[in-house]
């Protein structure tokens, strides 16, 4: 998280944190395992009132930021989400709201409902292709009279069974097309998928010849590759900030534990082998904070190196974050691998974030690809 948030940002983050501490304590999270939706609609509406859904939406469309830097503000919320392993479609809703806002408040009614928290939408995102700028998707868009028809399956889609709308980035000839598809449209079906996170839900969304009128288009046909790039940056910014929140929680719990837990008459914190591991963990933690913040700032500024930095953040936090929390588990001993302990809440969240929107190895290759492109441009 930011070293020096503005006063408004600090208040904003604190308000969210207070809300989450009260609404989503660990025991509640454990119970959400058996809840089909994974979150409560009223909880989500109240979060929206706190500003969770407006940060990537232009003021003229009903949105608004805290500091003028919406991505950075959103990363503060995401950090708290990770810090408390909080439930709710933060990523899904914000990415779709951003897409609608950036397309000039396409589907203004849906956007308004997303902003108020009345309605939930999610993104059927494409996957990274071989080279930077290339995308893969298993959903195809074809012309059908004035409108289009969709065929194929997107997976995994966050909160697929809970979403009222899907933003689909589908293959359309050589390009991508973005559409908003109501969950109620004929031919749409969702099959639930399993995950290790207790509160998040995923599904495979199948479009079996789904007809969508031209009004359903979000932007021009075949031109959505840059949109996908931008939405992916938002998604990665949220995933990264969340994961850093998880790292911080696990680290803090374990430092505390190391002072309280005695073995052979001494606190764990007095054993040099463990002290040195805490030192390593702290560098990973601070490295995670640092690269997440730098990457969010670059996304906000639409900087040239925004992709490289988000990928570096995703790969670093995914790998070292998991190593950090696993080592926290190790230092807790047996209790750390039990369901009744809280540590795994953060491990679960981080584990899923690690594998969403490109695993660490995929992002490492993406960085190599970006360097390659840069060298070609330079040559």
């Amino acid at each position, binding site marked *: 998280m930011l070293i020096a948030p503005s006063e408004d940002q600090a208040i904003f983050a604190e308000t969210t944190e207070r809300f989450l501490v009260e609404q989503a304590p660990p025991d509640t999270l454990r119970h959400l395992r058996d809840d089909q939706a994974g979150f409560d609609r009223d909880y989500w509406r109240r979060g929206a009132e706190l500003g969770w859904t407006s940060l990537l939406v232009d003021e003229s469309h009903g949105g608004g930021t805290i500091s003028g830097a919406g991505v950075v503000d959103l990363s503060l919320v995401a950090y708290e989400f990770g810090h408390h392993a909080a439930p709710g479609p933060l990523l899904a809703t914000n990415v779709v709201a951003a897409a609608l806002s950036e397309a000039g408040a396409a589907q203004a009614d849906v956007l308004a409902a997303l902003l108020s928290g009345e309605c939930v939408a999610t993104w059927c995102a494409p*996957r990274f292709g071989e080279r930077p700028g290339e995308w893969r998707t298993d959903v195809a868009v074809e012309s059908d009279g004035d409108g289009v028809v969709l065929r194929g399956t997107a*997976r*995994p889609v966050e909160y697929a069974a809970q979403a009222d709308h899907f933003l689909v980035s589908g293959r359309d000839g050589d390009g991508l097309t973005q559409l908003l598809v109501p969950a109620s449209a004929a031919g749409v079906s969702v*099959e639930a*998928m*399993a*995950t*290790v996170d207790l509160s998040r839900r*995923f599904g*495979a969304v199948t479009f079996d010849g789904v007809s969508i009128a031209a009004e359903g288009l979000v932007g021009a046909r075949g031109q959505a590759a840059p949109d996908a790039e931008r939405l992916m940056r938002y998604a990665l910014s949220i995933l990264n900030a969340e994961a850093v929140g998880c790292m911080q929680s696990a680290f803090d719990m374990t430092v505390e534990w190391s*002072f*309280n*837990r*005695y*073995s*052979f*008459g*001494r*606190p764990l914190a007095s*054993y040099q*082998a*463990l002290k040195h591991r805490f030192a390593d963990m702290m560098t990973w933690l601070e490295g995670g904070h640092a690269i997440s913040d730098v990457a969010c700032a670059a996304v906000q500024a639409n900087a040239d190196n925004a992709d490289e930095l988000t990928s570096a953040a995703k790969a670093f936090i995914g790998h070292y974050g*998991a190593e950090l929390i*696993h080592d926290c*588990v*190790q230092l807790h*001993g*047996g*209790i*750390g*691998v*039990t*369901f*009744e302990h809280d540590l*795994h809440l953060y*491990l*679960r969240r981080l*584990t*899923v*974030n*690690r*594998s*969403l929107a*490109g*695993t*660490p*190895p*995929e992002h490492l290759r993406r960085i190599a690809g970006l360097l390659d492109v840069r060298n070609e441009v330079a040559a």
Partner: protein
Amino acid sequence: MSALAAAEDRGTEEMEELESFRLRARAYIRANLRPMTMEELRLDYSRNDEEAELAGIAHERELQRGLFDAGLAGICFPEAYGGQGLTMAHQKVFNEEIVGHDYPRRIQVPTFSPCAAVILEFGTHEQKLRHIPAILRGDELWMQFLSEPSGGSDVAGALTTAVRDGEQWVLNGSKVWTTGAWWSDWGLCLARTNWDVPKHRGLTVFMLPIHQPNVEVHRIEMLNGSREFCQEFLTDVVVPDTDRVGEVDDGWTVGTRWMFHERMLFNSPYVTEPVGITHGSMDAGLVATVAREAGLLDDTATQERIGEARMLELVGDALSKRISESIATGTLSDQAAALVRLFKGTAQLRVNTLVFEAAGSAGAAWSGDGPSARAALNFIMRQGGAIGGGTLEMARNVISERVLAMPRERRLDKDVPFRDVPRGRPNTS
């Protein structure tokens, strides 16, 4: 009395020849124990099918009873207590012959070793007569009441307390990390009987039945959903003094041997262990399976992951063999077993990570119950194998201090009454 001593007692002239024993074992096994692959023999606790587990236990009791009746149970236990009074060599023959067949898997450890081994070594004649034949018949399944929630790696720091009351003792406290205490019969329990002497000098060992109102067994859910482990709460459990094992306050003499038998694990003469079986296999092959599902099999990075997992498995096996031989030939002390523990524990972590990496995006969400599910659950449970059975940190201590003879860590629990040993952060408020 050691297995060897038991055999010598009997006199070698009357002892069954290895070859005739082999033929007898083979005949019984082929006639009575159905063929099973290694894969089928592997225990999977993650299913959580309570009924199936109870049926499995009942089946194993029957198998054990069959072996007992055929004169094949307790190969290295003395005949006086229902065993066969034979040698480790006979047990090894049996271990060869049992390969590929069903056998009582769950009740080898900890029932025969360390529990029965400890009773055999420290129990009175009466205690042995009462329990060893019952164990060998499959009538008594035992658990170790050893670890405690407060204890971590420090088992001698037991807080469970036994207070003497005439000819009996009253026990209070909690034990944890017992596998399947809910279907076991007896617990071998380490308890503190004196708080006014240093840690190791105030412990005593007791035997107690698990199924009694004053013992509450709670099943623990692990991160992969497994509920194999239990925690027990002992509230005013009454144990007659005749169920004490070893002398009062001398429990660490028993404990030291107990730990030795625990280290021997499946190498114990008291344990049947099919040759070539692997425990907690590393599942290196899962990397390729999962990568195939994820469509990543062709990339060189995945191939390196597949190769790395297999390499770790092969080196682990080679190391295990080398260290066993080194211990057997006396080149290394039995403490060197910690090298295998550390290597395999670390390798297992790494393999679980490689599998998860190979799973690609299926690590976030998956459909069905196949290899991807296992990849993700094994990943969040990754440290389980680095904690259970002694943490890797303890293994590193043992290797550096006991094998390499480096200076021991400073301990603040020596030479002071146990009640004065710091057991938690002082209240600073």
